[in-house]
């Protein structure tokens, strides 16, 4: 069931907050030992919150009244540990809610627990050596992507009505894609990061992973907006994303990022997303190919800025307890230590060039589209991915051109399910202009009204 449908049933009195919460807790008890989506489940607290919700007068109930959610374990929930799936923060009990969780609670939602992530949100596998891998519900030998892998996993297995993830370089979009669900990286500065474990201040943003574009719109409308606790947020009006979903996409100008179909992608994935784009055209969109120059180097530029920022955030622990990191995360952080200082400034200059090019692009197009990932979910432990006959590439490099360009310049980007190959999900990314989440949601919603890819569930979850 979608979050929106559950919220409506709760409001109509067809199901109570306790029943909804208990239903998810039962599913978590049954399935989490197999998929490892949750690091911590707060059954007692969730049921107490559900009971408290039932005492709220009808007139005071928020739009998420009684809706059970899961929170990526880099985002603070008061009274629970924020571990970031790390040994270093394993016992990091926090007293105060992050801004986003406070806003979710104010809207009436119930927090089920904390969700698995790649250690410190610094990788796209979600295979923490400290808390174990999140396993893909479509094939438990495969990864969920990352770093918000537990969030994509929880949605695929129906272990929450909605979740929050974070995205620095694809960490919402990748697990949404690999879980066959929907996830949006909002414009950087749209959502407060206060009360979350940072990777890179330039690129970090919190955002929703849920079943549909409509569900993500409802969650983002709840958490978005300026926050005095986070000066990087923008004091801009938050549109009513739900009200803007309807109206169709006839005449919408869609730019197809053509390079992402030409190289570094498995041909079957490219063909699947081509079919999804044909559907947009059939719905009335005006589709044209485009070749943004900045996307060619965005992966490198992103790392020039992100890695030094991440290394700086971790400097104390790198000095005091480097042995407590997983080897992959420690090596990534050390890469940031060794990059020359001039690289950071070069990166920020290249971001300017990219930003200016994208601004011009969005004079010509309302949205851009491309495949979200070049491959279906790899196996756990698989280092290289198959891009076609005789062509392989390390997984960690394969994803950069598909994800970094949009993080680099703070654009909203949403992954929507676009098809399946051998039972494994494929996603399409819809990118909007800066602070243009509205058009992204509308395009995604219209696509999902015309297709049923987002409604398919793994056998394990049925």
């Amino acid at each position, binding site marked *: 069931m979608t979050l929106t449908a559950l919220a409506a049933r709760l409001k109509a009195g067809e199901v109570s907050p306790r029943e909804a919460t208990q239903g998810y807790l039962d599913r978590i008890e049954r399935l989490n030992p197999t998929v490892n989506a949750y690091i911590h489940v707060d059954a007692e607290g969730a049921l107490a919150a559900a009971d408290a919700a039932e005492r709220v007068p009808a007139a005071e109930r928020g739009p998420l009244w009684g809706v059970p959610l899961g929170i990526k374990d880099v985002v603070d929930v008061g009274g629970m540990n924020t571990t970031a799936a790390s040994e270093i923060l394993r016992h990091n009990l926090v007293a105060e809610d992050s801004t986003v969780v406070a806003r979710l609670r104010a809207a009436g939602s119930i927090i089920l627990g904390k969700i698995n992530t790649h250690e410190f949100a610094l990788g796209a596998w979600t295979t923490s050596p400290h808390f174990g891998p999140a396993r893909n519900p479509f094939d438990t030998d495969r990864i969920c992507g990352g770093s918000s892998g537990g969030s994509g996993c929880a949605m695929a297995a129906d272990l929450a009505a909605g979740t929050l993830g974070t995205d620095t370089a694809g960490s919402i979009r990748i697990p949404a894609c690999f879980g066959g669900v929907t996830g949006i990286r909002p414009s950087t500065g749209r959502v407060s990061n206060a009360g979350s474990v940072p990777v890179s201040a330039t690129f970090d943003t919190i955002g929703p992973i849920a079943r549909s574009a409509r569900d993500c719109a409802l969650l983002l409308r709840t958490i978005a907006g300026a926050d005095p606790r986070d000066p990087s947020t923008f004091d801009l009006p938050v549109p009513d994303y739900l009200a803007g979903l309807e109206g169709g996409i006839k005449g919408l100008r869609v730019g197809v990022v053509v390079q992402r179909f030409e190289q570094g992608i498995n041909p079957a994935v490219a063909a699947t997303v081509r079919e999804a784009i044909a559907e947009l055209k059939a719905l009335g969109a005006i589709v044209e190919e485009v070749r943004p120059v900045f996307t060619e180097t965005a992966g490198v530029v992103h790392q020039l800025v992100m890695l030094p920022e991440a290394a700086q955030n971790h400097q104390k622990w790198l000095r005091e307890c480097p042995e407590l990191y997983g080897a992959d995360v420690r090596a990534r952080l050390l890469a940031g230590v060794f990059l020359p200082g001039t690289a950071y400034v070069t990166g920020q*200059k290249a971001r300017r*060039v990219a930003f200016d090019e994208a601004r011009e692009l969005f004079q010509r197009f309302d949205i851009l589209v491309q495949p979200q990932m070049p491959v279906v979910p790899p196996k756990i432990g698989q280092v290289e991915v198959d891009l076609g006959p005789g062509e392989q590439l390390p997984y960690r490099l394969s994803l950069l051109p598909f994800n970094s360009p949009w993080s680099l310049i703070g654009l909203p980007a949403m992954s929507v399910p676009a098809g399946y190959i051998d039972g494994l999900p494929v996603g399409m990314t819809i990118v909007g202009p800066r602070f243009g989440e509205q058009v992204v949601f509308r395009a995604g919603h219209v696509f999902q009204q015309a297709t049923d890819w987002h409604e398919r569930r793994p056998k394990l979850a049925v």
Partner: protein
Amino acid sequence: MSADGYSHDFLRELAGIQGIAPTASDLETVQMFLTTILPALAAIEASLPPDVVPVGERLPA
């Protein structure tokens, strides 16, 4: 720009200055990373217009 001068000993010394003690395996991984990224960095530097102003953490709206 290349990673030719970035020997394990040099990297270990640089890390030591910052109070960090990487393992041999860490240095191997970092050296591979630098071998890839430093030439790419040089190419990006060369491609930038001379008068471009860097953006900061906070992009314009």
